[in-house]
């Protein structure tokens, strides 16, 4: 009898001790916010364009953490969807065309002769990438522009263009050799594309 009693008492004591430790740890090492939101936010392209229907990238990240679809980000495109699918361990679905198409990297350019200095685009820019003042010409800081095209709509004189960022000698990188048809796929050497003399 005493053996059973002592066993119960011992277990009880252990339970109290561990319970206290766990309780303390839960308070001491409490995680603020949802860490998965940060991770998702990190993968989103941070254009803050709102094409997903949420007011910015972080709200969309929060929505994804709460079970929203991962295919609503056109600026991120397939790459973002794939990395989100890897992170959340869900199936990668093709981009939802309802929210827009994946375009190349863009940057806003103001046709400065036509700008009337209304500051509407400045207020619309989510990353403060437009410089100017009332009745003064505005200009886009190209390095800071995320290409979200939120400034195009409010412009009363339609003087903002979204232009694709051209590839130059500094941004050029080697192509994937797997994509070059004359190397990949053709097992028979004579299938090669005809040589062009230099």
């Amino acid at each position, binding site marked *: 009898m005493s053996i059973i009693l002592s066993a119960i008492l011992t277990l009880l004591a252990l339970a109290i001790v561990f319970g206290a430790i766990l309780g303390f740890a839960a308070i001491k090492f409490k995680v603020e916010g949802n860490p998965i939101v940060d991770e998702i*936010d990190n993968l*989103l*392209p*941070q*254009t*803050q364009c709102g094409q997903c229907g949420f007011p*910015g*990238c972080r709200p969309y990240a929060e929505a994804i953490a709460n079970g929203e679809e991962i295919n609503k980000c056109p600026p991120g495109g397939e790459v973002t969807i794939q990395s989100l699918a890897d992170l959340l361990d869900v199936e990668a679905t093709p981009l939802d065309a309802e929210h827009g198409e994946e375009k190349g990297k863009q940057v806003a350019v103001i046709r400065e002769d036509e700008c009337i200095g209304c500051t509407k685009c400045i207020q619309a820019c*989510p*990353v*403060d*990438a437009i410089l100017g003042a009332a009745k003064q010409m505005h200009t886009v800081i190209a390095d*800071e522009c*995320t290409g979200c095209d939120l400034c195009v709509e409010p412009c009363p004189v339609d003087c903002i263009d979204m232009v694709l960022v051209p590839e*130059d*000698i500094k*941004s*050029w*990188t*080697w*192509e*994937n*050799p*797997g994509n070059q048809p*004359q*190397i*990949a*796929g*053709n*097992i*028979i*050497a004579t*299938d*090669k594309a005809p*040589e062009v*003399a*230099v």
Partner: protein
Amino acid sequence: MKQIWDFHGGIHPKENKEQSNQDGISDAGIPPRLILPLQQHIGHRAEPVVSVGDKVLKGQLIAKAVGAISVAVHAPTSGSVTAIEDHPVPHASGMTDLCVLIETDGKDSWCERTPCEDYSTLSKDELLSRIRNAGIAGMGGAGFPTAIKLHPPRQDKVNTLILNGAECEPYITSDDRLMRERASEVILGLEIMAYILQPGECLIGVEDNKPEAIAALREAAKETQVEVVTIPTKYPSGGEKQLIKILTGSEVPHGRIPADIGVMCQNVATAAAVYRAIRFGEPLISRVTTMTGDCIANKGNQNVLIGTPIDWLLEQNGYLNQKGSRLVMGGPMMGFTLHDTKLPVVKTTNCLLAATNKELTPPQPAQACIRCGMCSEVCPAELLPQQLYWFAKGQEFEKAEHHNLFDCIECGACSYVCPSTIPLVQYYRYAKGEIKQIKADQEKSNQARERFEFRQERIEREKAEKEAKRKARAEAAAKAQAAKKEAAAAKGTAASSPTEGSTANDKAAAIQAALQRVEAKKQAQTAPEVTLESLQKKLLSAEDKLSKMENAWKDAVENNPERAEKLATAVESSKTNVAKLNAQISEMNKGTGQAGGSEPQAPVGPSIEELQKNVDKAKSKLQLMLDTLEDAKLNHPDRVEKLERAITKNHTRVSHAETALSEATNAKKTTESTESNG
């Protein structure tokens, strides 16, 4: 005999050096046109300091280094600048970049140089700045600015200075010929570098397939501390990290530079260029380039001016264009194919290989990897090429990075031995590019997030401030309302109860007294002993200052735009200062006019004569303008609009002056009439 070590892997491709190393270095001559890319090095592009049409002399600076890591560009011969524009440059992408185009005049006349007989009379900083101004970038292939490499952070003492004369890549013999013919220049250049760095030992590593070069160097280095070390021929012993392993036995850690382990490696051609820059004050305007391959009739090494068009150079040496031939800049292992011959020779062009189809067989189609492991056996960086290949192909870039993809020196040994002819190096280059791109994108998105969050915060703060202001206003209004009510109530009660009324009166009196005190204080502040004279003096000096500043500003606008901005703000503030003083003086005048009753005729306005003069002046100006307008209509139609605008402005001015005049005369008449009446 110095002990040497061996590095992992390596291959022994056919050397093919005898085609081009038989004859001495000849001079390529001056082409009719030079194309000088402003980016021939690692770092920022140089900025042109000449403009189209300028005459330039040999050795004259045409583009200056911009930023911390950059290299200047000099005119390789005398001539005139015909264009500064985008032109195709020798780059693996085949793209264009900004170039300065020079039409040569054939005179080859030098600009002024600053030679130096004895480098030890100069300070280290002076030597470094001369090397920097000479536009020297590493001539082995990478093109890293030499002056920056020679100036490692202070904590990294360089114990071993190595000159790289290995030249391990097949076909290339430019360093070989240079060491044979200009051994003394190489040694003297090394001595200058050693003087700057003060290393414990100086070594020159040369592969044993260049016995003549070794003999020449040993002869030149007889009286010096320099040791010429013969190393076994194996590709890629000329790689910086591999040569360091061979000569010192130590390895450069991942992600670090040789200076971190107290070693520095420089190319032999760079050393020769450093010598010429210090001794003769000659900037880097030419280099030794190997012309080889079976498509070239006269194979050999030539001293080529930087910027010489390759098509001209090939033509000079008997270029036989054949079907399927390939033109490669650099060697067959690490060079890249040029798809155009209208490209210039640059500072890093050590070889032009115009190979026939037989010499450089076109790449065979890649077959499946059979996991033979030969690639990892030959990898000089001791990587796992096969794994890296899978990761690059599967776009698992993070894993590739964890397998030290960035330690790959792209030597091509793995592709050389691959029995499945997989273009391994191309995969690694692709993966490296993608990883860099991803990192840049990540950085940009982080920046965008930061800016976005900052903006949100600012908007929130502005909102809160507005809200607080609104609240404060509402509170103040409520208080005023309450005070009014109280006062009304006090009035009401004052009539009924005299005791309360007296307290209210006391309060009112106290407030009155306080207000008076404040008023008195204000007056004491605003009325110091400023007299009219002192103010006028101040005004004079301020105006003087303003005119001086404006002059300086105009000057600066032409010469120094940065300073001009600052001056403009200064001028503005000065102007406001003058205006303020003017206002003060006029106020003072008024004050004295009012206060001093003894001076009854205070100047009320300009006299009638003055007004008349004004009108005349304005009218004559208007007439002048109308005349010029007539003239402009005939000769300068673009000016007419501006003139018309000015004329309308002047019209209003005239009418203003006239009304002022008529008013004044009227006023005079009335006063006269009243006087006569009186």
